[in-house]
């Protein structure tokens, strides 16, 4: 459950940003995460609820968005987003090759924006 640590870091950033912008009530926090992070959306939501309950952030919603993964084809260097979860064995849309793909991203984990009042 490293999601507890991650959400606790998230909430520190949220509180800083709310104060900076003079916001009083948090409605939504949107977090983007890459396919190569070990983020379990359900565990993140559970941790968010547990850590905001009874605080000034209670009732806010955590939105999670997976950042599309891009791999570079091992055959022709074309960048593409694999359809399934077998990222490294997906057929390249340009040449059909299924080998030697390299991850171009996937480690993203950031707070994108807040909606607040």
């Amino acid at each position, binding site marked *: *459950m*490293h999601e507890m*640590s*991650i959400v606790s*870091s*998230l909430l*520190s*950033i949220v509180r800083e*940003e*709310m104060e900076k*912008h003079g*916001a009083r009530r948090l409605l939504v926090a949107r*977090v983007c995460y890459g396919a*190569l*992070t*070990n983020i379990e959306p359900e565990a993140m939501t559970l941790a968010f609820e547990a850590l905001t309950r009874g605080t000034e952030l209670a009732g806010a919603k955590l939105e999670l968005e997976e950042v599309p993964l891009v791999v570079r084809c091992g055959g022709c260097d074309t960048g593409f987003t694999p359809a399934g979860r077998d990222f*490294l064995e997906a057929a390249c849309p340009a040449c059909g090759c299924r080998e030697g*793909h*390299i*991850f171009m991203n*996937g*480690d993203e*984990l*950031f*707070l*994108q*924006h*807040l*909606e*607040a*009042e």
Partner: protein
Amino acid sequence: MEIPVIRPLLEANDKRAGELRRGFARRGVLALNIISSPGAGKTSLLERTLRDLAPEFRMAVVEGDLQTSNDARRVAATGARAVQINTEGGCHLDSALVAAALEKLDMDGVDILFIENVGNLVCPVEFDCGEDAKIALLSVTEGDDKPEKYPQLFHRAAAMVLNKTDLLPYVDFNTARAIAFARKTNPNLEVFELSCRTGTGLAAWYDWLRNALKTKRNA
């Protein structure tokens, strides 16, 4: 109102990890973060390495453990400096825990620092501890599909140590398959097949450590 932010969630951890990394660079210390499942042999690998390389290097260990100090005692018995972090149920080490541990560790003259993470293939991966490299340790009793199931670790590790190769005749572990998938996630991954029990294959791992330290100090 909508407030655009774009801030990494783990920025506080990453910042402290950066400070640790600069400290290691200043002291010329090679720092390695060892990550594996429980029972894969992290402590055994350290015991062997600390004993066998004691004449060449001064080494220290930050030992992450959920509850006990058994591992720290095993490591300290080799003569290496060791400090224990009890995470009290926490599933991973982070840069703050490592920084606190280092305050209790005499780092004078240390060449290599091993950070033995909590036994877990998932949670530790996300938390930078200031290391030069992550080492993924896998044992042949765990199944050859681990790199496939947990690509994140192998993607980010500099080396994969495949331990307990002396048990290969007794388990259905396809070494080629495990290595092939691990290298798919990370074409530059170094692989060491070894047995901490018999000592087979350790020499290549030791050479890698020697080179990694040399490279770091010449950088």
